[in-house]
């Protein structure tokens, strides 16, 4: 049975179109349709792409974490922690402040110093289960989280409960007799330094690959 559909040649010259030339397949109608669609696409992209970039920009925007004075060298014992308050986010009032537990580096507990940022130990109070504030309990010599029962030992390693890695730390240094607290870093169970991860993201074993470091917050280079 012959195909009864009216099949047109794809060449404009075969179809007898005025102004057609050899080998041309794009008719005026197709050209206009394509032009209109392209223009629409460009216009949409022109407002959509910048808006999306505007919304997801903070993912790629590195936050500089300033060094902050927390007190004179004499303030810090080496066998227990004292709480100090630092600012972790600007322009948000009390909400942007956080407690850091600090003590002097102790050779018996911490081993030899890694580098110049290790003279004072600054432990973040952010629980590594889901981010509640932990508290150092001197009687137990442990950090305890009120939310879901996470327990950390004296150096912040996980003792019990749901947390997936030890408590975060901050770099410290001494300037003009003042101890300063700097950027945050995360540690694994061997207390190796990593770029800061959020609570709930493991760093031991496969965890460090499942939860990659983010461009927005980094540890100091070469530490």
């Amino acid at each position, binding site marked *: 049975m012959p195909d009864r559909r009216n099949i047109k040649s794809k060449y404009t010259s075969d179809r007898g179109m005025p102004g057609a030339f050899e080998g041309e397949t794009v008719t005026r109608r197709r050209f206009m349709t394509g032009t209109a669609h392209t223009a629409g696409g460009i216009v949409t992209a022109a407002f959509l792409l910048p808006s999306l970039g505007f*919304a*997801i920009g*903070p*993912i790629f*925007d590195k*936050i500089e974490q300033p060094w902050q004075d927390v007190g004179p060298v004499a303030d810090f014992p080496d066998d227990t922690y004292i709480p100090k308050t630092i600012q*972790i*986010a*600007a*322009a*948000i*009032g009390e*909400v*942007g402040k956080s407690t850091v537990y600090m003590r002097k580096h102790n050779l018996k507990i911490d081993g030899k110093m890694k580098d110049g940022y290790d003279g004072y130990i600054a432990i973040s109070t952010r629980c590594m289960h*889901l*981010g*509640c504030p932990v508290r150092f309990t001197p009687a137990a010599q442990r950090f305890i989280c009120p*939310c879901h029962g996470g327990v950390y030992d004296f150096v912040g390693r996980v003792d019990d409960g749901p947390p997936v890695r030890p408590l975060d730390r901050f770099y410290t240094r001494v300037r003009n007799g003042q101890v300063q607290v700097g950027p945050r870093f995360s540690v694994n169970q061997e207390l190796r330094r990593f770029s*800061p*991860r*959020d*609570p*709930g*993201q493991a760093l031991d074993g496969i965890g460090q690959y*499942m*939860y*990659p*470091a*983010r461009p*927005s*917050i980094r540890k100091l280079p070469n530490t």
Partner: protein
Amino acid sequence: MPKLKLPSPPGRKAPPKRPGTPEPKRLEVASEKAVGVVDWLDERTALSGGARWMMFRKVPKGTNWFYTLGSATMFAFLSQTVTGIFLAMYYRPDASGGAYESMRYINDEVFLGEFVRGMHKWGSSVMVVLIFLHMARTFFFGAYKYPRELNWVIGVVLLILTMTMAFTGYLLPFDQRSYWATVVGVNINGTGPFVGPYLSDFLRAGPEFSATTLSRFYAIHMLLVPGLLGVLIGAHLYLVARLGTTAPPWQKPAPSTTDQDERA
């Protein structure tokens, strides 16, 4: 109820009244005018056909009160929309104290503020409960099967968006509970492998909970998700009207005439 009729085309005058016809009563004249307005609209939009198609559908035998859970969820959404819009007239998404202060003002000072805020707060829980009941009804009645699979998929997206609304709305009062619940919630998001950390950064607008986190949650809660919810509810309803509802599983099909003929 007077019958609707299309108005006569412009330019043609109404025929003169026959002598002896009584004067129309006032009520009749008024209702004639109202019908005229509806007719005017319908002639230009042809909405009555769509409305009839949507509202006067055949429903299967055995349709019962469980079939109202979807509408109940939609009315919860409408209530959330209305109360939410009016709450936005007083609320300030200001992280350095203004948000909490504006919520305190709504609760303590504004006329009926506590009531409207309470409707929005409790209504959110009601909506989540209803949407789950609606989902359970659909599941246990087998109403997700062919040809209604797409409507189930849309429903699941609506469920996720409703949970997003509940999550982002929880931060807005900006008290201790809001703050810590959001910290925990964002960190739960972050435990998703590979994309989790970036998703957390997107939600917080950075690596730490900051001043823009609140306005970000406010924009998601007020503009982004409600828009999507509205569009998808429209699609959900369109598919319900197009495909019809299912009979409950215990409903026996009516015996077919051929069977009866054979038996006879």
